[in-house]
């Protein structure tokens, strides 16, 4: 009995309550515990990836109850990938929070941070739809707490919007899950898939409605048009490490679509096989256009990065909507890239904001900021990566997706939208970069005391560099990484194996007897 699958979920939880108890011991103690635990999570997730390579599906029966009766955790390549991205991102965000002392700006930063990881990893590993709902709630509450960390008027307002919209989403989630349970009589995804495959045709309308409702829920999480309105302000106004960690939050929605819809509406689902994909593709394209326009219209760097994140989400939606193993593999490659780079970009935006003093991150000429050449160069690096220019990973991710789109009947739409949106983003980022870094006021004009920013925090800068390093790594090691995402996508399209693995896993023998349902 290997518990490896369960550890990424429970390690942050355990860390979380140790932190609750340790919160009297001062911030240093909390920092050490939190950071060590997050590093541990990175190590753990490497083991997860390697485990996912050796065996297709690790099914973990929580409470020793077999599926579909108990809750299962399932480790496959996708879960392992999501967990490892999350933990790497978390290390970067946490390092930044500690080195800039952002974690002192309010109570309980580390506790909320760890419970956020608990929610994320739980969502990535669970094989049960209702349990996914529970982890969504954990995520929501933890992220709401984190969002408000440090407080402030705009932050509180954006936080309220965030939590209310997501609560509407949770309500819809309950409707959808309730309906699916009512029709299918089960909550385990594998079992649901099996039941949908065998569902009488009279039930299909209801199942389809519940399926689309679930898509709306995940669309809210992923920030899909027209459900993304909670997102730009929330990300732009929260503290930098939180925004960085939130780079994975929208991906939870993408993950949920791939996992839940991909499993229960797979090839086996008869009339409903993949019926949701045109909606994902179409809305993804619309989202991308809106995101690109948002990038153009942004007033400040953080808002711009938030819209860039929206654009990356849109690209992922397009990849998912294209609905082929090649496109999915490309999507996953892009997902790794966009998550880590977006995280780094939020941190960088904060360094810019700190360096510009009273000018903050607004797009107007300010005084020459301390360390402008270094920050500016790294900004250009991040901007190239995020807007999908060569030679960094954003470009290759985009090319992979476009290449997969060539087989689709929508290819002209996909290619033109992706490329035009890309151009608008390049244009806007070039303008903001040149406004912030090039067009500086002369020393005399900008020498007011309020205008002087902080010197560059080199320790915090390490977090940005660390996350940005993902981009060249993704390019240089594109071959093994795409090999892994190829395998992952193939595995996901082979949902019969998943169903079989989950439903056939047997409990550890105990003294208690299990009564079988009589047919």
């Amino acid at each position: 009995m290997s518990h490896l699958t369960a550890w990424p979920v429970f390690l942050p939880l355990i860390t979380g309550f140790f932190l609750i108890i340790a919160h009297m011991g001062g911030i240093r103690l909390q920092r050490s515990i939190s950071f060590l635990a997050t590093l541990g999570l990175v190590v753990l997730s490497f083991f997860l990836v390697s485990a996912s390579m050796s065996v297709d599906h690790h099914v973990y029966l929580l409470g020793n109850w077999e599926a579909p009766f108990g809750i299962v955790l399932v480790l496959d390549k996708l879960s392992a990938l999501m967990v490892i991205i999350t933990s790497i991102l978390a290390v970067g965000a946490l390092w930044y929070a500690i080195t800039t002392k952002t974690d002192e700006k309010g109570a309980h930063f580390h506790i909320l941070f760890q419970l956020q990881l608990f929610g994320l990893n739980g969502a990535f590993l669970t094989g049960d739809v209702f349990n996914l709902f529970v982890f969504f709630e954990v995520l929501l509450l933890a992220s709401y707490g984190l969002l408000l960390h440090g407080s402030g008027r705009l932050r509180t307002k954006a936080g309220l919007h965030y939590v209310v919209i997501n609560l509407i989403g949770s309500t819809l989630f309950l409707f959808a899950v309730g309906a699916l349970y009512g029709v299918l009589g089960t909550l385990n995804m594998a079992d649901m898939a099996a039941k949908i495959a065998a569902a009488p045709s009279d039930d299909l309308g209801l199942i389809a409605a519940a399926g689309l409702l679930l898509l709306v829920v995940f669309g809210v999480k992923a920030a899909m048009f027209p459900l993304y309105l909670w997102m730009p302000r929330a990300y732009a106004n929260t503290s930098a490490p939180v925004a960085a960690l939130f780079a994975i939050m929208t991906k939870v929605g993408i993950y949920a679509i791939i996992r839940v819809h991909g499993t229960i509406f797979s090839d086996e689902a008869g009339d409903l096989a993949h019926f949701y994909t045109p909606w994902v593709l179409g809305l993804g394209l619309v989202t991308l256009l809106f995101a690109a326009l948002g990038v153009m219209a942004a007033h400040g760097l953080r808002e711009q990065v938030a819209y860039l994140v929206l654009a990356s989400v849109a690209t992922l939606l397009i990849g998912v909507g294209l609905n082929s193993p090649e496109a999915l593999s490309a999507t996953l490659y892009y997902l790794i890239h966009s998550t880590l780079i977006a995280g780094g970009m939020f941190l960088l935006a904060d360094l810019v904001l700190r360096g510009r003093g009273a000018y903050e991150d607004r797009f107007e000429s300010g005084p020459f900021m301390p360390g402008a050449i270094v920050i500016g160069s790294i900004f250009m690096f991040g901007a190239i990566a995020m807007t999908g220019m060569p030679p960094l990973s954003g470009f290759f991710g985009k090319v992979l997706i476009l290449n997969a789109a060539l087989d689709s009947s929508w290819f002209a739409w996909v290619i033109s939208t992706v490329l035009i949106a890309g151009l608008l983003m390049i244009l806007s980022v070039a303008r903001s970069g040149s406004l912030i870094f090039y067009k500086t006021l002369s020393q005399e004009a900008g020498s007011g005391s309020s205008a002087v920013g902080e010197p560059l925090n080199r320790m915090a800068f390490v977090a940005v560099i660390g996350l940005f390093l993902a981009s060249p790594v993704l390019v240089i090691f594109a071959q093994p990484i795409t090999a892994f995402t190829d395998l992952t996508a193939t595995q996901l399209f082979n949902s019969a194996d998943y169903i079989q693995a989950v439903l056939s896993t047997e409990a550890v023998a105990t003294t208690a007897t299990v009564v079988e349902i009589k047919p």
Partner: protein
Amino acid sequence: MTLTALLNFNLPIVALLPFVGAVFAAWASKINRLASAWVAAFVTILSLAFLAPLMALPFAGETLIQSWQWIPSIGLEFAFRLDGLALLFALLILVIGLLVIIYARYYLSKKDSMGRFFSYFLMFMGSMLGVVLSENLIQLVVFWELTSLTSFLLISYWQHRQDARAGARMALVITGMGGLALLAGVLLLGHVVGSYNLTDVLASGELIQSHELYVPILILILLGVFTKSAQFPFHFWLPHAMAAPTPVSAYLHSATMVKAGIFLLARFFPVLSGSPEWAWLVGGAGLVTLLIGAYAALFQHDMKGLLAYSTISHLGLITLLFGFGTELAAVAAIFHIINHATFKASLFMVAGIIDHETGTRDMRRINGLLKYMPHTAVLAIIASSAMAGVPLLNGFLSKEMFFDQALTASHTSSWAWGIPFLVVIAAVFSVAYSLRFIHDVFFNGEPVNLPKTPHEPPRFMKIPVDLLVVICLAVGIAPMFTVAPILAVAVAGTLQTTPPEYSLAIWHGFNLPLMMSFVALVLGGLVYFYRKRLFEWHESNVAHWDARVIFNAVLGWVNALATVVTRSFDKGSLQHASVWVIATGLLAGFIGFATVSAPLLGERALLPMDAISILVVIVLILASVLTVTLHQKRLVALIMLGVVGLIVSLAFVKFSAPDLALTQLSVEVVTVVLLLLALYFLPQTTPKETSHFRVSRDIVIAVLSGVGVMLFTMAVLSRDFSPISEFFLLNSVPGGGGTNVVNVILVDFRGTDTLGEIAVLALAGLGIYAMLQGMKLPAPDHDSHGRLWNRDLHPEIMQTLTRLLLPLMTMIAIYIFLRGHNLPGGGFIAGLIAAVALIVQYLANGIAWTNDRLKFDMHWVIGLGLLIATATGLVAMGLGYPFLTTTFTYLNWPVVGKFEVASAIAFDLGVFLVVVGATVLSLVELGKLSDQSHKTQSPLKPQQENS
């Protein structure tokens, strides 16, 4: 040994070495300003050295390909190719690059950062080498876009200058756009051919031309070409890019980057040319560009502006040659690429020297420099004459070939007869502006009001120009002994076959091309002579046509569109956002049902209605409606909300779910207290109500949602139901050791859900705590009717009563907790009851009094609760079972008798503690907040809960 091993991958080294060098150049400048120039020169020579051993291959008719796997799933290889065409361009890039580096070292002033310049310069050089040496087309696009990015950096090198920033951005937008189009074209091309490798693509000309995607591919690739090589209608970025330092212009805007588009034309010439679409698009763009460039060049007062338009014109000439589509035209095009690179680079350098020495580039002020800088003047005169196409210079030879091809082309179709005339007109202007460059600058009287007194530049600044001018002469006089071999190789590389017969002789006898040259020279002289009138006409009729205005207008329009769309959709309004989510949800449900033709409702019979249920439902509806309509009377609305909650618990009772009813009831109590505390801080007056339109819209959405949810629920409930819950009923006792199935599900079957939920509760408590730390809210000191708060802080009757209640409620909580596994109850409900018991104490006695007696931090309670709950799971892991596996046994105690002990009860204890801790923590923190707000205002004001 190692050297031969190195030779197996020296093509990538040639291209990537400059990138490595860029890092060193930046680093070297910290040691010594000039060190970075040395590094740059050294790296360029090194790249040449790596290229040198391979040069023999193209001459032997071989194409060298060095490739490695990169992303095999899409056919992206890390692949390099060396054939004649690539070799020619690589040599141009490296040799002219080296000359420009030497030149730039003297050109840059003390204020300019050498490290930054040479670092960007080397990156650009590497990108260009990558473009010309790429075998894989996606890799080519990568380098292509890199040239756009690095040129952005180079053009905006003097970043304090507005024109530099604007010019750089314009170049980036135009060439970036072209790059993206090129990417699309290459993707389609790869899709058609089935490979992104040039070798495969070059072998598939027929397949491509007969494919339905041929025209889109052609247009997309040409967009890349035209933007990069400044072809009409994208030519306007090039003059604005002249804000760059002159070495950059000499290198990028004459010899290399603008030739990248031309390179691509040459590269795809064998597969894409030959169709009418090619002839029209390429030939048309080339011809228009040739004319516009030549015309506009004459009227520039800025030396670099003149050279920029002249470059545009020559690029148009080359494009037109490729547009002719014949092999001989391709020969002429390649030849002119070489010639243009040499004379134009030298002219830019001359312009830079003059700018450097006089402090201006305005030809109306720079006059008569011959006597100040005779050496430079000679160089400039020779190079300009080459540009004008004067015999015995290289420009003459390729121009003759060009005229010859124009004449040939004029026979090809009925519309083409005018080509020779238009071509001669362009040549006339070309002669005129070359004359202007010579005459205005070096003769034409005395300089006007120059910032500096001109003199000859440092010797090494002239050496690169010397060399290039010598090449102009050498090629012009003895082409067979100089340029012929490399030209032949390059042509072979372009055509991918044996080159056609052509003659490089200076003298072909008296023929039509020679006549055309002669006419152009004479008429050009005349045009220059009558330039004053022409200038006036130009100023009043043409000068105000500026493509930049259109460009900026389009950009402004897109920006305005972006702002309008973004701000009208992302308004920052919660109502707006919620409407979209709810409406999308509604629509999704509708579309779902419409996707499949299946009945909405199932066939199960409905249960009969009884009078009481109907009555209760009516009350529920009324209460819901009143909650909304009375929302301004907050207390009443809250009571109505309470009614809704109570009816929901009644519904649970009716459908035999006592656990849920109990939970709902206790949650209801806690929520109402919480809301009361929160209501206290709301402003006394409600904000302005929304407009009628919005209210009616919201009513429609609300009604639709209600009906939608009802239908949705009906659809589920009217169908037969065979869930897994039977398993829970069967296994609750034998597997979970409890008869209360709900509780066994909570703590055992689905214990992880509960663990998650208590984490949520804990988060809520901790979140509220964190949120309220240090927060101060103004509290009202009177209610909406102007009455002051009751002065009686803690009424004695209430105090007495609640103190009596505490042990009683605690007893109940423990009782409910203990029986939970078998009868309605459990940790969650018990926790809520205990929390209410404690909260009542706070309410009645005040926070200080209660905290004095309740001496533990609720953080501990929450932490301990989570710890116990999780530890239950971890113990199971320690014993070799999965997380949260439970066990139970029966004990027989005296007096108590036989009873069952389940490990799940420990888990439930954790639940209990978290519920108590989180609830009390949230309420007490809110209470404290109101306490503080009172203390800050008026110490006499009593607490809010007595209102």
